[in-house]
């Protein structure tokens, strides 16, 4: 386990050495503060548009950080040939996969923590109130969803030749699920057979990332989720992440390391 933590530590150090996070955070902060500086109809209490924009930017930034950080991990190790001394430590390939995943997930979590702290400050300064439970649930579910995204990008980094193609495909898949995942069953029912069965099968196979997007509940001050639902969603994400990591390990185990 120490080996896995050591590998994860390297990935986290990479996050704060690279400029991606800082650029995205500054962009989010500047855009949110610029929008916040506008007063509509002389009413400074209007807040939901600002929260909406800030949360949207946080979601985009978190996806960019999670996917780009994960997609380059193993290809970079292979390209720089640092994978050979790493595996000679001795570190098993399973530990490399686990360490990289843990590092990327924790790094995304740290970035997400900073983003949500900023969101909390913006929200509380406007509304003079913060729904702490809903806020923590939104943060937790967002981070849990990123575990699936990180797992997907890690698996993709072993399937696709270049990090850029992997990142692009991951973005398309994740955005596709977020936008369409909830409606695929509805689409399936409007199709003739056998397309209906195919689309319905995809609906049951994909990880339903859209569940973890509870921005509307947070924005419009709806009551918080039940903790059992949060737990079940966490278990669901855990199962998908484990499946993706298992797939990544099986691929990595048989993969020749020389380019």
């Amino acid at each position, binding site marked *: 386990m120490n080996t896995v933590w050591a590998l994860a530590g390297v990935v986290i150090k990479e996050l704060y050495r690279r400029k991606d996070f800082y650029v995205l955070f500054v962009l989010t902060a500047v855009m949110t503060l610029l929008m916040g500086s506008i007063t509509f109809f002389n009413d400074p209490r209007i*807040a939901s548009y600002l929260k909406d924009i800030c949360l949207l930017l946080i979601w985009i930034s978190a996806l960019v950080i999670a996917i780009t950080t994960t997609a380059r991990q193993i290809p970079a190790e292979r390209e720089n040939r640092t994978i050979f001394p790493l595996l000679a430590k001795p570190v098993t390939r399973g530990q490399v996969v686990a360490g990289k995943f843990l590092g990327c997930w924790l790094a995304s979590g740290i970035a997400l923590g900073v983003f949500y702290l900023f969101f909390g400050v913006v929200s509380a300064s406007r509304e003079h109130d913060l729904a702490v439970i809903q806020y923590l649930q939104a943060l937790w579910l967002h981070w849990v969803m990123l575990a699936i995204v990180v797992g997907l990008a890690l698996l993709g980094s072993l399937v696709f030749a270049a990090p850029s193609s992997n990142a692009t495909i991951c973005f398309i898949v994740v955005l596709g699920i977020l936008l369409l995942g909830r409606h695929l069953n509805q689409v399936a029912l409007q199709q003739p057979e056998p397309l209906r069965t195919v689309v319905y099968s995809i609906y049951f196979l994909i990880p339903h990332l859209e569940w973890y997007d509870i921005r509307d509940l947070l924005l419009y001050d709806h009551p918080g989720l039940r903790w059992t639902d949060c737990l079940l969603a966490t278990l669901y994400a855990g199962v998908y992440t484990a499946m993706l990591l298992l797939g990544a390990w099986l691929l990595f185990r048989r993969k020749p390391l020389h380019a």
Partner: protein
Amino acid sequence: MNRPVRHSLLLLLLASACFTLATLLQPRVATWGQRHAADSLMKVVLGDGRRLFANHFFVQADVTFHSGYYPSIFDRDQAPKGTRHLTASPEDHEEHDHEPPDPGREKDEDHSGHACEMSFLGPPRDWIEAFGRRFMVTEHTHLKGGKEREMLPWLKISAELDPQRVETYTVASYWLRNLGKFQEAERFLREGLRNNPKSYEILFELGRLYNENLQDPNRARNVWELGVRCWDERESKKDKPDLLALDELTVHLADLEEKAGNLARAIEWLQRALRASPRPEAVQERIEDLQRRLAAGGSRPSP
């Protein structure tokens, strides 16, 4: 002359040429298109393409009004039609209201058109959908208690993007009036009128602001009468004119004249409303009542 000095001089020469050309061309470039006349950043950046996004922001205002409960593009058939539900008076919904779930929202229990329109979810088709609904807004509620102000930024942005979209001004003004922001409502309606000079819808809303909120019936009368003239100009020759708008204008004018004691004038407006009203029998009854009062010599202002 050595090489670095020559290079510096060349650079200076080019910079001077650029500056001279810029001073010559800038006034000409400004007259090439209409962009120079743009008075907002959005107009400069997006040009006429901004109108495409205006509807998105108008819908976003509707989504906010429903606290996030709104049909997606896959439930488009069930999406609310028109914009009347956005300006429905709170009393319309409170008639069938039960315990509101939240002081900031009003539960819409009425089974009238809009509530039925918005029951788009139906029973879940499978366990994924059933479980997924625990993470989304599934209750049809409307903002209330001052929280309606949250819709306003989206309407303002929508108006910036498409200044010719009349309903943006009328809906925003309705809520601004309800929130007690009369000056802001007037300013926004005037802006709408500048962009849509013949809009009887905006004139009607402006008249309501003067009559109901600013207690200025004379200005309301002028604005509504102008509204009727604009309606005649724009709608009277159409196969399917907007009769509802004419009905609203004329009935409000009749009310105004009745309150001012001008019963004959009120009857004239009601006779005009008779041809536009969806319930002509009710209008006819009112005309007869006014005629009786006029015959009895009752042209005093009603209390």
